[in-house]
């Protein structure tokens, strides 16, 4: 997305009254395209003003207008800076390259077989598959946490400038958010300051980056809280803040959505998508999850692992293009026999029950409209309906 589209997106969010998202995206914009620390300080202060007033129920329309006006001014400022300085982004360079990776665990008869994969800056790769099928093992090998038995593992982007770069340094460049989050001690903000300082972000810059990430991820309310006072969603968001504060090039998230409610999932995934696709600091994100639809929403690439083997590895948007069939999943209160009658006119239709929902496989020529019309024709109201013809979900239908 170029600078004009990015600016229009922020303007649209602000004008449509979605100030919270608008400020977040404006922060990304200023960070990516602005050139002075002052603009970042100002946008952080505006965000803080917005969030604190919102928490205190003192967000008047006048204040909203004032904030919107100032945000737009900062957008213009950042845009001018960008055209003046001609900033260059990092582009989609490969950061991790795996070829023929294999790993065996003889004690539990698990084998990760002949894995090939590339991970690029600014791309989110979703790794999906049933439990105990090698997702975590695969990710740990990819980031140098676990040694493979066979195959090649390279980090071309890091080696480019420094051919003698060692494992220790490489591991230092990877941000890892485990499934079971370890407890934080002390004030949450101090933890963020510490993490940033460990990665060389010192002094005023440290404070600026900490305030930025707190505001950017909407953590203002809990910045002075302790770990035990947080819900599962906020714990993950703080863990994400800790991982992102030092602008890593590789971010690994192991089952981050497991304990989140729908709203929290949406927030986390939206933030992840925006930050990974940053112009100035793009990140290669590896995210494993059982939540296939949610992952598909943010992922640029999908890897499906089953029994330690890759069943699909490619662009999410390209999955299922060559299929000669369509698949729909839906739930309703009708009996299977009524559904058979409803789809009697669609000759290729095959209905299968999966317990509380059904799947319908048809020719490629059958559209969503036709299926819905067929249901309507028999007065069957679907409670849930999804076209999964382009989703890897169809690989998990039993």
């Amino acid at each position, binding site marked *: 997305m170029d600078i004009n589209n990015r600016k229009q997106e922020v303007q649209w969010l602000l004008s449509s009254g979605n100030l919270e998202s608008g400020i977040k995206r404006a922060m990304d914009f200023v960070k990516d395209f602005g050139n002075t620390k002052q603009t970042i300080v100002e946008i952080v202060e505006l965000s803080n003003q917005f969030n604190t007033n919102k928490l205190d129920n003192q967000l008047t329309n006048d204040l909203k207008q004032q904030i919107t006006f100032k945000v737009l001014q900062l957008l213009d400022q950042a845009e001018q800076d960008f055209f003046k300085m001609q900033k260059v982004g990092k582009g989609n360079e490969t950061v991790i390259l795996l070829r023929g990776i294999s790993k065996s665990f003889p004690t539990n008869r698990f084998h990760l077989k002949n894995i090939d994969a590339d991970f690029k800056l600014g791309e989110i790769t979703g790794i999906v598959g049933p439990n105990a099928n090698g997702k975590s093992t695969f990710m740990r090998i990819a980031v140098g946490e676990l040694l493979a038995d066979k195959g090649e593992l390279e980090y071309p982007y890091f080696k480019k400038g420094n051919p003698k770069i060692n494992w*220790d340094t490489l*591991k*230092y460049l990877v941000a890892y958010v485990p499934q079971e989050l*370890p407890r934080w*001690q*002390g004030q949450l903000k*101090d*933890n963020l*300051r*510490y993490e940033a*300082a*460990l990665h060389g972000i*010192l*002094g005023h810059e*440290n*404070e600026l980056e900490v305030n930025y990430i707190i505001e950017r991820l909407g953590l203002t309310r809990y910045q002075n809280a302790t770990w035990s006072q947080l819900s599962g969603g906020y714990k993950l968001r703080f863990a994400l803040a800790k991982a992102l504060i030092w602008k890593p090039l590789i971010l690994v998230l192991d089952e981050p959505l497991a304990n989140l409610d729908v709203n929290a999932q949406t927030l986390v995934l939206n933030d992840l998508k925006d930050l990974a696709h940053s112009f100035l600091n793009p990140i290669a994100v590896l995210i494993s999850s059982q939540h296939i639809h949610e992952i598909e929403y943010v992922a640029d690439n999908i890897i499906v692992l089953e029994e330690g083997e890759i069943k699909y590895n490619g662009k999410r948007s390209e999955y299922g293009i060559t299929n000669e069939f369509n698949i729909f999943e839906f739930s309703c209160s009708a009996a299977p026999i009524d559904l058979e009658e409803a789809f009697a006119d669609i000759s290729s239709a095959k209905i299968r029950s999966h317990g509380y929902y059904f799947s319908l496989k048809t020719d490629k020529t059958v559209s969503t409209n036709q299926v819905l019309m067929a249901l309507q024709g028999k007065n069957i109201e679907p409670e849930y309906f999804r076209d999964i013809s382009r989703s890897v979900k169809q690989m998990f239908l039993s």
Partner: protein
Amino acid sequence: MLSKIQNFLIPSFLKRLDFWLLTHKPHIWRTRGHFVVFYCLIAAFLLYFLGKMYPQNFADFYDGDYVKNNSVVLYLKSFLAFTSVGIIMWWYSIQKFSYLRTNFLHFLTEIGIYTLGICSISLFIFSFDHGYSYRQAFQLEKNSREDSLWIVDNGLFCYGYMPHFQPNKESNLAEYFKKGENLDAMLYNRQAIVFNILKDEVKDNNDYISTSSTDAFSYSHWEYPKNQKNYTRPPQYQVPADYVNKILTNDTFWKQEEKRLKFK
């Protein structure tokens, strides 16, 4: 509530230092050495005064073994009470923050901080004991001076070496002397010999003259002074050297003594 207590206990300069270390020197900050050193110094200072105020039985000071044994017990108690607890608490606080990567300089710095911290924690031991010993020494000097005055004023220090004047069950030398027993020229000569011994001791010791079990003072005052408990062997005194020296060089004293011994 806990944060309010912390705010109260942490002075503002230490908060500023903590924040500066957190945002500039995270490897030092994570050791919490600055808190350890600061609070250990305060605790050492307080313990020093506590040591000085600690109830003491000054009669015990005459027994060198008692003082020595008591010190050992004190060291052990202090070590167990403060050092071990301090180190455990410090270790716990370090566990709070995950350790990432460090270079050799950071590693050396951390080792230095840990060493400084352990030394600070160990100050507990010395500070209490030092305060305790200070008072002991101060009081000992006072008691010793009083005793020495009494001893010298009564001309008793010279009799210890004389086998036929050893104290017995019935009476000690002080009473012997008070009763006005016969004294002869030999006693005077013997006194001179003892003084010569004392002179040598004064040359070697600037502060105190230690009286061992073979010393004249000890044998002379088996049951003296009034604070003395019933010991199975002679107690030891720490006699201020300058006082003894004054006596040894005091002509008036000598003349009085000579007169007293000769004509009594």
